[in-house]
């Protein structure tokens, strides 16, 4: 339940940032219902808000969503969902539900944790998005409230838990520098795709054991 409330609060800022980026109320809410994976949603509206094309934003969102495939892989045996249940379960495969499910020793408890967390977060995530978007629509000039400084802070807060060892810190710093180096010369949003391509090249190095 606590994790549901936390993501509701986090959704408030998504609703506000998406609205500031120029999305309509229905577009903002649709993203939370249909995409339902926080980092991808923030990235899409972040790219749009910075003047990038929706396709650059969409590509970044998809690349960020790739980690959910690995989560699904870890969860598939545990969930053992068949038929229509699998299609619903898939939608709930995100950072939070994966963390809650694999933290349980017992398989049945893990399954329960997955579904309970999924339903709680889905509900509060969409409610939070709606409230955040409605509140921001009521404002005349979001920039006065410093909302243009909100997306980088949101990305930093999403990034921080992933920086637990030296390798990811080095990669984060390098990615930031590379993106800024390319930024003056390519369309908005493209530096992100260049960074993703470089990470893919990194994948060609010998496998660590």
């Amino acid at each position: 339940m606590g994790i549901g409330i936390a993501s509701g609060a986090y959704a408030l800022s998504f609703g506000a940032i998406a609205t500031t980026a120029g999305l309509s109320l229905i577009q903002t809410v649709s993203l939370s219902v249909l995409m339902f994976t926080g980092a991808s949603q923030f990235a899409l509206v972040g790219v749009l808000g910075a003047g990038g094309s929706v396709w650059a934003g969409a590509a970044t969102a998809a690349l960020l969503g790739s980690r959910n495939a690995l989560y699904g892989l870890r969860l598939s045996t545990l969930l053992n969902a068949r038929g229509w249940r699998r299609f619903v379960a898939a939608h709930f495969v995100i950072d939070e539900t994966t963390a809650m499910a694999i933290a349980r020793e017992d398989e049945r408890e893990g399954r329960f944790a997955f579904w309970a967390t999924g339903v709680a977060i889905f509900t509060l995530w969409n409610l939070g998005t709606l409230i955040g978007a409605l509140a921001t629509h009521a404002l005349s000039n979001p920039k006065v409230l410093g909302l243009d400084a909100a997306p980088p802070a949101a990305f930093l807060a999403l990034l921080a838990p992933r920086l637990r060892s030296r390798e990811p810190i080095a990669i984060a710093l390098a990615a930031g520098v590379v993106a800024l180096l390319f930024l003056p010369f390519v369309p908005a949003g493209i530096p992100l795709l260049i960074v993703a391509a470089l990470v893919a090249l990194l994948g060609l190095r010998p496998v660590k054991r």
Partner: protein
Amino acid sequence: MIWAGLLVASAVCYLLKLAGVSLPQRWLQNPRLQQTVPLLPVALLAALVATQTFSSGHHLVLDVRAAALGVALVAVLLRAPFLVVVVAAAATAALLRLL
């Protein structure tokens, strides 16, 4: 056009999740994939932080957003909740603009 982008991105994100729970385990157990995919969010989020803080259009700039990011960093290091981090950064930018 915006709608098309939103719907395609949502569909791709869903298919990635569905692939994880549906495809044969060995397809995704490739060690290179296991080693590289977790690095994508790290690199992309860091690139987003950098570009959204230090640029305006195609120009590199240093403005109140850098100070806001500094405040956000302190909040993150203090393990503040997500919303506190975001609000602290926005408030910093708003206050500095008032000065």
